[in-house]
């Protein structure tokens, strides 16, 4: 997967990545990135950390679905199952002092950035021990101490915010970068275009990662986007962009590393389009009648955890026993998160009135 530049392009407007491998319909083949296989070139510790995070997030979210069905979690609950490689791969490339800001489908990214599974689960349970102290819920996870600047609930609303965070990093003359995640449906919002224009105009160290899971709620890409090539939209702003197979966690990591280099060294933004797929409905209340079982199963053949596991085994990094050990460890972590959430107290009723203003005025 090569980086695309905004230099004059010689031939067609077909993005790099080739036309051979595809993440299938409804994405036009000529617009899709090559399927990749995780190339095991990292050190063992990094690889195992990535594997652990993906597995933890998968099992954590399976538990979320169960807890939601039991009525333990309220409101909207948007699951990330199937998309883990995007968040984990990208965040694995960041420093601790870099920022992540994202949408409402953010449980996995919150965990990857360093919020404990327990603090996330407690937030979903609406408990005082939650990372937003029970005031945000599933869509609004925050933790300032790990530079996780929130899940945001309005489609595309976090994109201008991310641009501002990156603006602040440059204003303060630091080399911190900001990663902003959003779904492909957000690309149709003005907020996306307004932000990319300013980020390139002012050279802001922001990495925009579009998680193209091919459906905006129940509306497919084909029914909602005139140019179904998100990465190509960067050309409109002369911004660097790149396609990535969002099922390949190491491809995500490497693409993010390239973007980070541009951001840290030259304050240049990048748009990354990660082709991925969500297995579950848009939210827990969505039965997903707009797509077939066969379509989902087809993507599950290239499940990001499955293909990463196979690559690690092939490379001799993981044995069957290691995998069993990780499964046991993750199971315990998830159970511990549920115990913490169950035992955490509800917010004190007095908290209803706190945090409305930082400088409250009594009247």
């Amino acid at each position: 997967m090569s980086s695309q530049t905004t230099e004059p392009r010689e031939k067609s407007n077909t993005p790099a990545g080739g036309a051979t491998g595809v993440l299938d319909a409804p994405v036009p083949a000529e617009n899709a990135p090559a399927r990749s296989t995780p190339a095991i070139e990292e050190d063992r510790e990094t690889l195992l950390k990535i594997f652990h995070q993906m597995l933890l997030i998968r099992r954590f979210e399976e538990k979320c679905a169960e807890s939601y069905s039991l009525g333990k979690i309220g409101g909207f609950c948007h699951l990330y199952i199937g998309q883990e490689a995007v968040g984990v791969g990208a965040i694995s490339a960041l420093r601790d002092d870099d920022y992540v800001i994202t949408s409402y489908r953010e449980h996995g990214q919150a965990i990857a950035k360093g919020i404990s599974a327990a603090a996330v689960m407690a937030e979903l349970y609406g408990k005082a021990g939650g990372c937003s102290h029970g005031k945000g819920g599933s869509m609004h996870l925050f933790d300032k101490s790990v530079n996780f600047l929130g899940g945001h609930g309005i489609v595309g609303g976090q994109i201008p915010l991310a641009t501002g965070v990156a603006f602040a990093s440059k204003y303060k003359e630091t080399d911190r970068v900001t990663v902003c995640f959003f779904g492909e449906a957000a690309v149709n919002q003005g907020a996306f275009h307004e932000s990319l224009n300013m980020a390139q105009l002012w050279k802001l160290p922001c990495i925009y990662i579009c998680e193209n899971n091919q459906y905006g709620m129940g509306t497919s890409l084909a029914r909602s986007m005139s140019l179904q090539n998100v990465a190509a939209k960067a050309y409109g702003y002369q911004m660097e962009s790149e396609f990535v197979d969002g099922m390949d966690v190491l491809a995500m990591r490497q693409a993010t590393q390239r973007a980070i280099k541009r951001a840290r060294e030259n304050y240049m933004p990048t748009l990354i389009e990660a082709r991925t797929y969500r297995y579950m409905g848009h939210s827990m209340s969505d039965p997903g009648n707009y797509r077939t079982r066969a379509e989902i199963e087809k993507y599950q053949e290239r499940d990001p955890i499955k293909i990463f596991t196979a690559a690690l085994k092939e490379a001799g990094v993981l044995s069957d026993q290691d995998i069993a050990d990780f499964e046991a460890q993750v199971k315990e972590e998830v159970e511990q998160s549920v115990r913490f959430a169950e035992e955490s107290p509800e917010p004190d009723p007095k908290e209803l009135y706190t945090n409305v203003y930082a400088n409250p005025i009594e009247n």
Partner: protein
Amino acid sequence: MAVMTMRDALNQALREELARDQSVFLMGEEVAEYQGAYKVTRGLLQEFGPKRVIDTPITELGFAGLGVGAAMAGLRPIVEFMTFNFSILATDQIINSAAKMLYMSGGQFKIPIVFRGPGGSAYQVSSQHSQAIESWYAYFPGLKVVMPSTAADAKGLLKSAIRDDDPVIFIEQERMYGMKGEVPDDVDLTIPLGVAEVKRAGTDATIVARSLMVPVALKAAEELAKEGVSCEVIDPRTIRPLDIKTIVESVKKTNRVVIAEESHPFAGVGAEISAEINERAFDYLDAPVKRVSGVDVPMPYAKNLEQLAIPDVAEVIAAVRAVSYL
């Protein structure tokens, strides 16, 4: 004490706060090289440079959200809307991001930002460029809404707004930029948010007025004084949080209230003040609370129609007479 226009008083406040705190920056359409569409930001680019005084594209949602993000990361942005009419494009970021961030993050992310610019009625620019929308912003917990009516208030309140840790909507009346008043020289002049001021003391009726309606109310009070009717004029200055105590204390003394505003009456700030008075001081009222509001129509262009759409001195006088049964 110097006499200056509200425009220059605001300019001084911006200059002093930019000089005082490196984390303060100013952005908006035409604020830098053009020197401000209304010249409020005149000279600031030359003094503070393009890093801190930034011309934006015409992209209100984008730069409002950029400001909120910068505030999340520790800066103190001042975002100018060329007029508040254009803030309508940015309301998602003002309401869903700025106003709610501190709360939904459980207190982790304060948003010290000022959204400022001219608002209210202008001169013959018709419906889309001439309207008072403070009641929109005043509706939302998490926002503070400020509307100065004098040059000194403009300076002192703007400095407080910039130093405040919450998002502040600061609405400057477009017709008032040229109005002159005395302004103290003190570079640390601040006027606390959330505190009303009695602009004229009186005993027979209370007129609650804000922004452009303050000079109108003061003129009405002057005329009524000639007839022996003593009016107390109160300017809340901050719409949210509203200093209702000062208003209620006045009502308990005068027993009669007129609320003057140039905004539409329906679901407006005047309606809220009226409801508060009814809840807190009903037994003190000798007449129903009377509102004098802008007419409930979009702003027309024709000069005669425009004049009819905005309350004037005669209407305020008539309202005071009505609540006084004169």
